[in-house]
């Protein structure tokens, strides 16, 4: 077995590049989802909002201006092979250095404060990143940066349902979450839903679910069915693009599940806004 060395400087450079890129280039599958929504939206105002968002994506890419002024929390997923040896320093520090570099080079917004329930002092460089590391087999090193804005994040919810609430309870909770949010999370939205695990695991799954390309159903038929049911019921709420009323409130629902305790049914719903930003790279 050979150990592949990866220096943290490479990690910083990759994180910086991905975070800047993600803030300027809307993923092609998201653009396609917006275009599809435009074809289907019944509300004239809703169509105007969607056209505006598509035009915004063009302008951002052309002018190198962030798609949205909330360049977000730098949520970073690092999938690291067990046969990789990280050299040159701390991984977490390197990721934060990459975020700080991106904020400076890419003119991104410093939106992070320390001491959240007391002084709320801006950290000045949008660090720390929200880093999640997964050790996997092999010697790969994949990094995904998902800039996550407050508008959608603030409307996300988690609940510890009773097992008897079942799939219907999951659907009801997800739909209710969107109903309460209304136009505040910048529809059209995407939903990431985590079912099972533990309280924290469900929450993490709900965010990881947002990494799935728009419109791709869960490989499990029953979960795919649940995704479709949530999507239909959410769109029946009539919230529409921008919350101004319409039929295309949500462009995709992704559920991820995991075994959980016999007495529990954790459900987490992470709302993602229309600026569904993400970028992936491999070291």
């Amino acid at each position, binding site marked *: 077995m050979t150990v592949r060395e990866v220096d943290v400087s490479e990690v910083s450079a990759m994180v910086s590049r991905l975070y800047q890129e993600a803030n300027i280039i809307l993923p092609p599958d998201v653009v396609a989802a917006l275009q599809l929504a435009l074809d289907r939206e019944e509300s004239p105002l809703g169509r105007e909002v969607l*056209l505006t968002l598509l035009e915004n994506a063009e302008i951002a890419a052309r002018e190198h201006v962030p798609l*949205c002024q909330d360049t977000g929390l730098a949520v970073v997923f690092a999938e690291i092979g067990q046969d990789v040896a990280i050299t040159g320093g701390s991984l977490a520090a390197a990721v934060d250095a990459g975020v700080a570099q991106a904020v400076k080079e890419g003119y991104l917004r*410093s939106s992070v404060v320390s001491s959240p329930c007391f002084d709320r002092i801006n950290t000045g460089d949008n660090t720390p990143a929200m880093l999640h590391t997964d050790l996997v087999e092999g010697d790969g090193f994949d990094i995904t940066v998902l800039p996550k804005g407050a508008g959608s994040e603030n409307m996300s919810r988690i609940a510890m349902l009773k097992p008897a609430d079942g799939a219907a309870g999951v659907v009801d909770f997800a739909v209710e979450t969107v109903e309460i949010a209304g136009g505040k999370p910048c529809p059209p939205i995407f939903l990431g839903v985590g079912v099972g695990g533990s309280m924290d695991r469900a929450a993490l799954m709900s965010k990881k679910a947002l990494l799935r390309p728009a419109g791709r159903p869960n490989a499990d038929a029953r979960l795919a069915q649940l995704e479709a049911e949530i999507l239909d019921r959410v769109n029946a709420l009539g919230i529409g693009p921008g*919350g101004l009323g319409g039929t295309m409130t949500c462009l995709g629902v992704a559920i991820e599940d995991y075994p959980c305790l016999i007495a529990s049914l954790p459900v987490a719903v992470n709302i993602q806004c229309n600026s569904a930003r993400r970028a992936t790279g491999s070291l």
Partner: protein
Amino acid sequence: MNRDTSHKEPQLPLIELHPPLTEADARALSAGDKVLVTGTIFTARDAAHSRMVELIERGEDLPIELDGQIIYYVGPTPASPGKPTGSAGPTTSIRMDRFTPQLLALGLRAVIGKGDRGPGFTAALKENGAVYLAAVGGAGALLAEKVKAAEVVAWPELGTEAIHRFEVEDFPAIVVMDAKGGDLYASGRAKYRR
């Protein structure tokens, strides 16, 4: 990137707003009216609102004259060289609800943001003769192009949350809540709910 523009709707008449606005200007608007704002608007979000209300409660002067003015709830990204401001789309308005009645009482005529407001907001607009305009949430790059000049006029230490003076040209928005009880968020959702 290709974009299908065959859905371009025939445009309803757009109302031009040139701040400062009179109470009559504001009361004349109706939910659903599409507007283009040209002139001076001021940016302020959570931190600046909190400070302004603190000053009002202490009987002190505000750093800006609010009478007739428009406040835009935005925390822009830093400007890259050659541009007046960075990405500049609206932030979620409801967080400013608790600070707004006192500002309306000083003659603030319109606020620009996104998302529905809380209970009591309709009444506050009606009582004071002001309107709530929505800009498209997520259209930060597009809206930034409407900002022709920008400068910090108060509290630079607040960074993105400082009060900026923006000179805007044809800044697009829609009246979502008027001064007569009209609420497009409510009526729009009711119309398409099934």
